């Protein structure tokens, strides 16, 4: 640079810890520390029952379904939106792809049909959300709240309030299996995370998502087709609900309208605890993954110690508040 270059010196004077926790990698580091702390608590209180390979797989498997949904939610929130319909759309997708005619069709052709149907239902719900929000100018909170209610209702009508059993052996065989000792469900989660990371951090799609969430007007003037892009983002969230539906069917072997109840809140909590800004413009996939893992580990530790789910809920609430407060603190510190 020129002679007017800003004076740079290496001696950052902030304490090491706050410096490390201030950066974006640092924010994830804070979450890693929290996760490790939970593991230590788990190991001390529940011993080998907690710290076994099988139990760790259980934790991750438990995290995987909500995790996939949370990846989609990360995009929506990064773009400055919100999607409350993810859980109930997932429920609807489990119902539609276990309808008897779908399963009959699947058994006469291929179990893939059930997967395609689940994805199509999720994608269609996302498309409707996207159109209503981007082109109908309805606030995302309201539009997706409407979708939450409507798709729950539709699922009840279609399933006639019954639980529809998956009896397609090809589907169960493929989805409930393992690959090198690790359940397929976890592999799906891992793939979605990797794809999500690349999409957000390394592609034009991700950059545009961040730009729209950070400054809508600037994004528009920079030539981004904002409405169309927002629609894509909601479709993406719908698709992750579809994927989650497939995983849910594999885990529970049943489709029902009550699947996914309150998942939207778990997903939002994981995303926000992970460090994605609720007002948009900054998103982190790794943070979301850590957020999901923290909550599922917490649940596991509580279950291993036979503590009630009510106590669990209280702890969850406390974690959300503390995590967000810490983040703000470090964010401020790194600014000042």
């Amino acid at each position, binding site marked *: 640079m020129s002679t007017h270059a800003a004076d740079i010196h290496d001696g950052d004077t902030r304490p090491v810890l706050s410096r490390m926790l201030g950066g974006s990698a640092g924010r994830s580091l804070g979450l890693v520390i929290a996760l490790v702390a939970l593991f230590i608590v788990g190991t001390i209180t529940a011993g080998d029952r907690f710290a076994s390979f099988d139990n760790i797989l259980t934790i991750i498997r438990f995290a995987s379904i909500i995790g996939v949904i949370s990846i989609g939610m990360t995009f929506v929130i990064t773009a400055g939106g919100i999607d409350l319909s993810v859980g109930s759309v997932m429920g609807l997708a489990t119902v539609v792809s276990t309808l008897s005619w779908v399963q009959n069709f699947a058994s006469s052709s291929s179990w893939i049909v059930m997967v395609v149907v689940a994805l199509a239902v999720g994608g269609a719900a996302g498309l409707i959300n996207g159109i209503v929000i981007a082109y109908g100018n309805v606030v995302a909170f309201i539009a997706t709240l409407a979708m939450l209610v409507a798709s729950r209702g539709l699922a009840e009508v279609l399933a006639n309030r019954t639980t529809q059993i998956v009896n397609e052996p090809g589907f169960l065989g493929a989805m409930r299996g393992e690959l090198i000792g690790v359940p397929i469900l976890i592999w799906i989660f891992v793939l979605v995370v990797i794809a999500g990371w690349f999409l957000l951090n390394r592609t034009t799609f991700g950059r545009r998502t961040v730009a729209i969430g950070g*400054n809508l007007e*600037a994004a528009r003037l*920079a030539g981004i087709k904002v409405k169309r892009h927002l629609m894509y983002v909601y479709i993406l969230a719908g698709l992750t609900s579809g994927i989650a539906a497939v995983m849910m069917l594999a885990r529970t072997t049943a489709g029902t309208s009550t699947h996914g109840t309150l998942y939207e809140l778990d997903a939002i909590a994981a995303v926000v605890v992970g460090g994605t800004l609720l007002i948009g413009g900054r998103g982190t996939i790794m943070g979301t993954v850590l957020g999901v893992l923290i909550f599922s580990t917490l649940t596991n530790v509580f279950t291993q110690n036979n503590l009630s789910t009510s106590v669990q809920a209280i702890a969850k609430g406390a974690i959300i508040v503390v995590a967000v407060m810490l983040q703000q603190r470090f964010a401020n510190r790194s600014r000042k």
Partner: protein
Amino acid sequence: MTHEPIALRATGITKSFGPVRALRGVELELRSGEVTALMGENGAGKSTLLKILNGDFRPDDGVLSIDGVPTVFGDPADSRAAGLRVIAQEPEIIAAVSVAENIFVGSLGSVAYNRKALLRRTRDELKRWGFDRTIRAEALGSELSPAQRQIVEIMRAVVSKPRIICFDEPTSSLGDDEVTLLFALIRQLQAEGIAVAYVSHRMGEIFKLADRITVLRDGSFVGTQLVAETNHDELVRMMVGRDLSQFFHREPAPLGKTVLELRNVGNQYVDGIDLTVRAGEVVGVAGLVGAGRSELMKTIAGDYQVATGEIVVDDHVWRIRQPADSIRAGIGFAPEERKAEALLLQRSVRDNAALVVLRSLSRWIFVSSRAERALAKTYIDRLRIRTPSAEQMVGNLSGGNQQKVVLARWLATTPKVLLLDEPTRGIDVGAKSEIYAIIDELAHQGVAVIVVSSELPEVLGVSDRIYVMAAGRISGELTRSEASEERILALAMDEDVAA
């Protein structure tokens, strides 16, 4: 004059942001009843110093004393309690409440307040400070223009009856009339014995207003001069560290064919606009605030819809319905409000510079970080953007450097037509001169450039030809040799067109 009591004294103020040393050993004295100008290039540390006075940041080192008593400001409330008010460069206005509530937001208290009394009081204050014609007390925050927002911010400070007031580039969003009112306000403050600090990049204002000038460069204290004992050239030397031999770098380039043509373009903001710009030509657009200059730019850029007429680029009629269309036609647009309309403040210089050309830096959908970094580096060097690295968050850059990032974004598109709306607002003399040189260079490369500016010397200095606007229409056209401040003003106030 030299013997006025010192209201505030700052000595040895030092402040770093991570690796960036924004201030080191800065001295400042503000005297009651005097206006002290604070000058320096973009990134010199002026805003940082004022933020320290406001209690936003704590200095790493140094002492602040008020009336000779050393004090520490933990937060803005402490600073206010000490009788100090800092008027921010970017006012924060609450959109959903009225001007009255915005002005008295700090003193509303928690109990129910009497809205009628509040409105009355607001009207009185607006009248007292001369802004009763500029703003209505009932208007909502969201309805305010940038100039009005700035005035609300100023009113907020003066109604709290402080003893020291600091202004950070208050005039950068004001029109000429409002500037006149503001100067009257500052004179009144001065007469009441209030100490005033005033940051501005406009030399003319400084010589009109200030008693004393303190200059910063690269975070260091250069010196303090009495206005009566200094001159323009010495100040520039102090700020820039060298002579600026040629402020306006402008040599008319050979003109090519017409690149941009507007034929009878109109919509709800502008009407019957006929305008041409040739390759290599710099066309100025002048006019008063509200004449429709920015609206015209936004119409060309596709932000506003064209209702009648057509826009022709390179002999091809383009249907421009959204900004993406105008970018495809080869038009680049740097808007007036860089923070609200151009920048992603949370993102890096690299991200911001690459935003429009993302496609060309990517293979399929994958963005090449290396290409992005190379692009950022090119423009950091070429535009002399002062940033510790391409990864720095744009929100942490000084105002002028933010503007250069916006320019970088559009230069990266190698546009055929470049629309610059107030390109040097809030930019220091050195950088201004650099930006004029860049405009000149672009013209020589055959780009058709339109510059909208409220500063007449700037319009006159850079333009080959000037359109003057009034009430949404073009009220006249002047060649470089015909143009003068008087003729532009006469056309800008053209009653026939306005009627």
